[in-house]
């Protein structure tokens, strides 16, 4: 079975092996033992709550308990941009109108901004190709929302996730070619490498700082603003189901969208419920709303230091959940313990 859990120091080697599989495009998970080691150390201290909340980096691994293999990784950074500026372009609107000429022109503009400074960031999601099936991707991505719903006081109200931007053939970024290249005079790949080395803010110093009309860019560049890389589209959809939205912030290089949410408006905050492990009373069970027999549910324990989560088919009924013995073991829980539950899939209001 698969369980998602807080990372441990002993996961470092497995993490490194996984990082070698990631390939280019994810700048926060590079196969660099020093960088990964530092990061795991911060993550362990985060779960142990030995560093201040705003410095924390909660990293989770998905473990295949049959083999002990690490199948995936994901993380929540408490706050971005507090030690180095965090840049985005924000898309705004400016209207130019002249009644005399009967002209009313609505222009999109790009503003270089640090608006997202201090936000909590979802990042570093990677699922090993061997495990890309069924609900594994959902489990891995959504575990973070359940964690946030369990410990909301640890996070800022603003939650973000940067999505990889659109690329054409051979990794060419039309947005970069239309904008960044004029100011950097270097290849996108080189920029990407520098970004991975943590030099992002220094590159941003070279970007135009004055508001920029999108109409100045070539059509090809305009077309991809806020578009994700095709391979990232499923990950984007998962986040959107949880209440994250594209609100006009994009990456300064490839114009990939930043998804945003208010923590208090997340589906996990609205709909996740606590339940005691055990059998439901007869009456409660009888009145349970009819659901598909195998509707999957995310279930986590409520323990920060040893946070664990899995996908169950047990449904919570009026505050109780009949969690199978094996799943209780994986969550390090017992009958009578409280767990947090959230339906894996979104139930839309059928009345609108």
């Amino acid at each position, binding site marked *: 079975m698969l369980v998602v859990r807080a990372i441990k120091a002993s996961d470092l080697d497995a993490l490194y092996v996984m990082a070698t599989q990631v390939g280019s495009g994810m700048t926060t998970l590079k196969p660099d033992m020093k960088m990964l080691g530092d990061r795991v150390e911060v993550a362990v201290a985060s779960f142990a709550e030995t560093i201040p909340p705003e410095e924390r980096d909660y990293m989770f691994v998905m473990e295949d308990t049959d083999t002990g293999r690490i199948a995936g990784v994901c993380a929540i950074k408490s706050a971005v941009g507090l030690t180095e500026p965090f840049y985005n372009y924000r898309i705004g609107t400016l209207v130019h*109108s002249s009644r005399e*000429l009967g002209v009313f022109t609505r222009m999109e*503009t790009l503003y270089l901004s640090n608006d997202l400074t201090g936000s909590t960031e979802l990042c570093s999601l990677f699922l090993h190709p061997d495990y890309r099936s069924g609900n594994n991707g959902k489990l891995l991505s959504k575990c973070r929302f359940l964690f946030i719903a369990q410990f909301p006081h640890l996070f800022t109200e603003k939650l973000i996730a940067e999505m990889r931007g659109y690329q054409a053939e051979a990794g060419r970024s039309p947005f970069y070619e239309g904008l960044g290249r*004029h*100011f950097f005079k270097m290849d996108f790949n080189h920029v990407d490498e520098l970004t991975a080395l943590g030099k992002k803010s220094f590159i941003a110093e070279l970007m135009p700082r*004055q508001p920029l*009309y999108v109409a*100045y*860019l070539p059509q090809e560049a305009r077309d991809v603003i806020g578009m994700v890389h095709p391979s990232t589209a499923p990950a984007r959809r998962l986040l959107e189901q949880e209440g994250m939205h594209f609100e006009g912030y994009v990456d300064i290089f490839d114009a990939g969208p930043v998804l945003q949410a208010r923590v208090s408006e997340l589906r996990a905050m609205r709909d996740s419920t606590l339940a005691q492990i055990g059998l439901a009373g007869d009456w409660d069970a009888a009145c349970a709303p009819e659901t598909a027999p195998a509707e999957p549910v995310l279930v986590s324990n409520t323990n920060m230091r040893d946070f664990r989560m899995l996908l169950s088919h047990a449904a919570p009924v009026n505050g109780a959940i009949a969690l199978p013995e094996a799943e209780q073991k994986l969550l390090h829980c017992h009958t009578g313990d409280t767990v947090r539950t959230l339906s894996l899939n979104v139930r839309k209001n059928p009345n609108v």
Partner: protein
Amino acid sequence: MYVVRPVEIADIAALEALAAVTMPGVHTLPKTRAQITALVERSIASFAAHVDMPSEESYLFVLESLADHAILGTASIYAAAGSNGTYFSFRNDVIQQVSRDLNISHSVHALTLCSELTGYSQLSTFYVDPTLQDAPEAALLSRARLLFAVLAPQRFAERFFVPLAGITDAQGGSPFWDALGRKFFQMDFLDAERIIGGARNRTLIVELMPHYPVYVPLLPGDAQAAMGQIHPSGELAFNLLTAEGFEADDYIDIFDGGPILQAHKHALRTFTGALQRRVATCPAEPDRNRETPVTYAIGTGADQHFRAVVMACAPLESLAVVALPAAVQAALQVTDGDTVVCVRL
């Protein structure tokens, strides 16, 4: 002989004929008789006005052949550009982008909508008959406006500028406009120029044009190439003006990207080289053997009596008087003992 003098009512017909000649760009003569008449009347009022501070005056000069009284050219100057509003232009800015860690420093060229030229005196319309293109009279006509400013400094600002028409294609399109103004005005270059009447001081410019710098590297190649380029018809004017001391790199036109030349009067040869000399009568054929003669523009009069002519004579630097033949005195309407201003052409 030719004389440059303020326009008169009697010149209207001749100006109409000149206006019929194709003159590209924004600062040309109007085409209709009514507009030309208004222009002439405004000029006459301006020359007649007693001015303490430059304002809405506009001075129009003509180049007249004294032989047949033909009008062979015209040039004008506004006392204060945008005087009933603001004169807008794009300033050529350099924005510094520095990354210490990457050890990169870029100078990025940007255009900023600005109103700095407001209140400068503006040299405007300049047209000279093709037969005189290479004659010193072309330089005289261009120079006469500044000579007048030397003679009547209180009528003008400390700084001067001249917008020159930018390049357009065979269809009257402007690559610079297409890359910039069109996006905001949503119309063709010629339509926009027609609507705005060649003016650069209208509120609708603030309403429609971008308030933020335009980064030049983002403009298409043809628009970048058009920046600061003059329409071929403006070459003569451009050469005369740069020789005069005008500089071309700081501003361009917001519509077609044509160059706007500007200078402080202290940097202009007409001002720095103007010699004030008393008039002396001399024989019709002066002795030219003493020293190599020099061609001078000679002007007089700080109002409607302004006149300017070209004349070659010995260098005047070390002389207190200038010897003028009777014909020249007549053309300038001066006599023995009067004062004239002389500038090497």
